[in-house]
């Protein structure tokens, strides 16, 4: 396909994606989040098949980032710490915590293209992706909480639960 046609096809796909998300949210409410979450889990598990197992969270994040890069997914992230944090990785009440900044994000772009609000069902796909990938790589449950959804970057808290 020519690049010009690919651009048009990509824009159509994005509008379609936004429309599906919006329609699903209207039709079934918050259950749309579960559907997107599970789709993300399946994607995370599928794409991280064969990735070396590790219990080190930074190694696991590097591996997850590599999985995204290798598959041309524009969902890249970086660990972040504020000036008052000693380390990037912290031990919290619920598990090991890392703050992540997401800059280029194809979901955010799709939502803006459609004029759709952030923090909706499509954003839960990223949560699911991490849960699936980290389940494969670390063998642990995790959650990805949206702390802030910005116009140019999003700020999220990854919590990897302790092994029971």
């Amino acid at each position, binding site marked *: *396909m020519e*690049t010009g046609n*690919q*651009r048009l*096809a*990509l*824009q159509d*796909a*994005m509008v379609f994606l936004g429309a599906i998300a919006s329609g699903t949210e209207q039709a079934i409410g918050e259950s749309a989040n579960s559907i997107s979450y599970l789709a993300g889990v399946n994607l995370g598990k599928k794409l991280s098949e064969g990735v070396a197992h590790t219990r080190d969270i930074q190694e696991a994040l590097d591996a997850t980032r590599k999985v995204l890069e290798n598959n*041309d997914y*524009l969902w890249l992230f970086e660990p*972040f710490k*504020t*000036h008052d944090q000693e380390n990037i990785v912290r031990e919290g009440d619920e598990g090991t915590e890392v703050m992540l*900044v997401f*800059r*280029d*994000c*194809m979901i*955010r*772009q799709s939502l803006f*293209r459609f004029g759709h609000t952030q923090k909706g069902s499509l954003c839960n796909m990223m949560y699911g992706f991490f849960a699936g990938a980290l389940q494969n790589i670390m063998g642990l449950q995790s959650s990805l909480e949206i*702390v*802030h959804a*910005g*116009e*140019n*970057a*999003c*700020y999220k808290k990854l919590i990897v639960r302790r092994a029971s």
Partner: protein
Amino acid sequence: MSLEIAIHEQSCRGCELCIDICPTKVFELDEEKRLCLVKHAEDCIACLSCAYICPSNAISHTDYHAVKNFYRDAEFCQRMGKFL
């Protein structure tokens, strides 16, 4: 790339919207002058929410990573071909 963030003092009305919206607590209110100040620029993640929400358009960022409008990026569109 070294991000810089600045508040135009004459434009700021001290409404504190930037303080409320910033997820990493970059700003602080100068009670005496009733102006918002950049207190921890190093904590800025360049989400640009403060710049968008400021009613006086007083906040500016320089040297930050602007998100890719990937549907306009020819190289990315070619890579996305496999999904289409």
